[in-house]
C-alpha cells in the first residue's frame, strides 16, 4: 500500500513543456484518474511516477520517502498498458507467474499466488491457453492478473481499455473498479475518455496543454468545473456556454432572453468582473427544461434520440447551439420554436477574459 506525492514535478523536452510543474498527493488506496486529450501530459506524468521517464525538476515521494531517481524496479509499482504486452509463446499461467519467477520465488508460493489472482479475475479456465487465442477482454484480464500477482504497492494504468470495443470497455470498467474496491490498492489511471474517468475515479486530475486544469471528485469537476476547458471536456455533450450580460438583478442572453440572476451570485460576479458586464453563462444539458413560459427561446436545430432520452439542439441568438436533455415523450421537428428555463442552482458563470470559473459565495 502506498501514498504517492508529486512536488513541483516538471518535464521539459528541449524548450517545450510536456508537463508544467505539478503538485499532487495520491492517498493510500485512492483511485486517481489523469484525464485529458492526447498530448496533454497525462502519460508523461504517469511515466515519471513509474520511473520510466526522468523528471526535469521536482520530487516524487513514495510513502514519504523520496524515489525521484530510483529505478522503476525499486518503486514497486505495476504498470498495465493499453497493449497487453503478454508473451505470446508462454501460456497464461507462465505469463502471470513470470514476475514472481523473476524474483526467484518458490514454486509452491508461485502456484498459490497465481491461483489467488486468477480466481479474483475469474480466469482459472484460461491458465493453459496461449494469449494469442484469447479475446481482447481476456488478454487484458491476464495482463491485470500479472500486475496483481506481484502485490505491488501501486498500480499504474495507461489507457488499459483503449483497445477494446465499446461494449467490452464498459464491462471491463466495472471489473477494474470492483477489483479496486476489493483490493484497495493505490491506482493511478490514465485515460482520454471522460466517461471512464467519471465512472472510475475517486478523484480526477484534468489536464490540458501540459497543465493541470482541475483536481476534484467526479461531482466537483462535473458540477463546478474550474474553467471553460473542464466545463466543455466533462460531460457528453459538454456544458452549454453562452455569451451574456449580467446586471445586479438579471442575466441577459443576447436577444433571446433574460432571467433573474440566480441567488448568491451578485457580489462575486461584481467582484470578479470588476465593471465588465460580459460573462459566459454555463449550464449542463439537464439543467435546462423546455417550458412554454421559459425566459429563453430559440428554435430546434436538430434532435437526437439516445434510447433512454432525447437531446434537443436549440439554436439561440442566431448562431449559438445549446443542448437540452429531454424525455422522449414530445417530438420536436427541426425549426420548431422552443422556450426553456434553467435550474437556478445549476447555473455557472465564467470570466470570458480568463476563462476561469467565477465562484458563487458560500450560502
Amino acid at each position, binding site marked *: 500500500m502506498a501514498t504517492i506525492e508529486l512536488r513541483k514535478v516538471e518535464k521539459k523536452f528541449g524548450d517545450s513543456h510536456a508537463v508544467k510543474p505539478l503538485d499532487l498527493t495520491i492517498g493510500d488506496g485512492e483511485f486517481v484518474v489523469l484525464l485529458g486529450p492526447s498530448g496533454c501530459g497525462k502519460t508523461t506524468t504517469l511515466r515519471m511516477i513509474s520511473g520510466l521517464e526522468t523528471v526535469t525538476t521536482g520530487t516524487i515521494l513514495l510513502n514519504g520517502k523520496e524515489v525521484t531517481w530510483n529505478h522503476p524496479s525499486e518503486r514497486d509499482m505495476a504498470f498495465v498498458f493499453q497493449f497487453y504486452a503478454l508473451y505470446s509463446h508462454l501460456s497464461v499461467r507462465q505469463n502471470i507467474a513470470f514476475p514472481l519467477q523473476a524474483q526467484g520465488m518458490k514454486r509452491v508460493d508461485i502456484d498459490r499466488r497465481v491461483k489467488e489472482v486468477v480466481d479474483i479475475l475469474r480466469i482459472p479456465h484460461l491458465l493453459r491457453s496461449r494469449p494469442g487465442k484469447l479475446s481482447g477482454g481476456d488478454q487484458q484480464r491476464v495482463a491485470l492478473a500479472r500486475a496483481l500477482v506481484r502485490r505491488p504497492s501501486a498500480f499504474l494504468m495507461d489507457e488499459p481499455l483503449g483497445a477494446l470495443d465499446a*461494449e467490452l470497455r464498459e464491462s471491463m470498467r466495472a471489473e477494474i473498479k470492483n477489483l479496486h474496491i476489493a483490493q484497495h490498492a493505490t491506482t493511478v489511471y490514465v485515460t482520454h475518455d*471522460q466517461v471512464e474517468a467519471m465512472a472510475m475515479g475517486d478523484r480526477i486530475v484534468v489536464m490540458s496543454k501540459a497543465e493541470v486544469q482541475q483536481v476534484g471528485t467526479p461531482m466537483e469537476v462535473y458540477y463546478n468545473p474550474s474553467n471553460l476547458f473542464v466545463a466543455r471536456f*466533462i460531460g457528453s455533450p459538454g456544458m452549454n456556454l453562452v455569451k451574456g450580460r449580467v446586471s445586479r438583478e438579471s442575466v441577459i442572453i443576447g436577444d433571446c432572453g433574460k432571467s433573474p440572476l440566480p441567488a448568491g451570485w451578485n457580489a462575486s460576479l461584481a467582484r470578479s468582473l470588476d465593471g465588465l458586464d460580459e460573462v459566459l453563462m454555463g449550464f449542463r444539458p439537464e439543467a435546462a427544461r423546455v417550458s412554454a413560459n421559459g425566459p429563453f427561446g430559440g428554435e430546434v436545430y436538430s434532435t437526437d434520440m439516445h434510447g*433512454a432520452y432525447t437531446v434537443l439542439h436549440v439554436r439561440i441568438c442566431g448562431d449559438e447551439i445549446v443542448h437540452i436533455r429531454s424525455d422522449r415523450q414530445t417530438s420536436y421537428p427541426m425549426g420548431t420554436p422552443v422556450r426553456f428555463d434553467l435550474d437556478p442552482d445549476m447555473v455557472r458563470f465564467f470570466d470570458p477574459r480568463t476563462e476561469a470559473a467565477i465562484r458563487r459565495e458560500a450560502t
Partner: protein
Amino acid sequence: MSRFELQHITRRFPTVTALDDVSFSFADGEFFVLLGPTGAGKTTTLRIIAGLEKQDGGSILLDGQNIDSHTPAERDVAFVFQQYSLYPTMTVYDNLAFPLRSPMRKTPEPEIKKKVEDAAEKLRITQLLKRKTAQLSGGEMQRVAIGRAIVREPRLFLMDEPLSNLDAKLREALRVELKHLQKTQGSTTLFVTHDQIEALTMADRIAVLNEGRIVQQGTPDDIYDKPGTTFVAQLVGTPKINLLQAARQDGTVRVADSGLSVPAPKLPLPASFLLGIRPEDIRPDPKGAFTAKVVLIEPLGVETILHLRSGSLPIVGLVPGMAAQKTGEEIRFDIVQEKLHYFGTDGMRIVGDAL
C-alpha cells in the same frame, strides 16, 4: 426523386457468405443507417450499391429500374470514407472543386466557385478555403471530405463510418452538423456504422445487419423500444439491457435467482424465456416492491449507473443525476412494467397474436 431498392442481394466469397438475401429500400431524402458489428457485411453492401463490387444474386433498382449493369459513374453516388483521402498539397478550395473540374463534368469556374462557397458555408469551413488540407485537424478534414461529396450534388451519399476516426467531442459535434445538413439539403444518405449511438441519433430508419443478414429494420424508436431479437436488444442502449432467465408460474413471471416477479403479460409465453429490462426502467424507490444490494456505482454526471445484486442476480440500473445510493447499501426499487421485453430461448421477441 430517387428511391433505391435492394432485392435479395447475395454476395459469396470462397469461404464465407458476406451477404445473404439482403433486401431493403430507402426513399428520397431519407437518412438510412446500416448498423452492425465488424464483419456484418455493411461495407460490402455499400460497395455493391456504388457498383464497385458485383453481387452474386439479387438486383438493385433505382426508381424501379434495374441498375445492375450501370457503372459506378452512371450510378452517380458519392462516397465519404473513414479515411479522408484528400489531396494534401492542394488547398481546401481546390479539393472541393476537384470533382467538378473532372473531364466528365467540366463545370465553368464561376459555377464551381459558387458551389464550393455554398458547401463551405454549410459546413462552416469558409475560413479554411485557402489552407492546405495537410494543415487541418481531423475534424476539419472530415468536413472537407463531406464538402467534396456535397458539391457534386449526387443522387445518393454513401458514408462508411465517416466519424469513427474522430475524438469523442468532435464526433458528437459533427453528428449534429451532419444530421442538420442532411435534413436541410434533403439529400438521400446511406450511412454505415458499428456505433449504436450514431445510428439512434442520426437515422430516420435503421437496418440492423449481422453475419450478412438483415435482422431488423425500423425507426430508431422501433429498434430501441421493440427489439426483434436479443441480438438487437443488446446492440442498442448503454448500459446494455438486462436479459434475465425467467419462467411463467400461475399468471406470474418469476426471474431466476432473485425475488423479482411481475404479473404475466398477455403474450404466448413458453414455460421458460428471457425477460429484458432496460437499465433506465429500474427505478429506485423507498416504497419499491423489490430489494437489491448496491455493488458498484458509476457516476457519469448527467446520470449514474447502479450495479445491483438482487438475490444472487446481477442487474444494472440507470438513474438521473448523481445518485444518492451508496455502495453496499440495500435499496428498494420498482420496474417499469409496460416497458418489459420478452424473448424466447431462440432469441426471438415474443409478440402477441394479432387479434
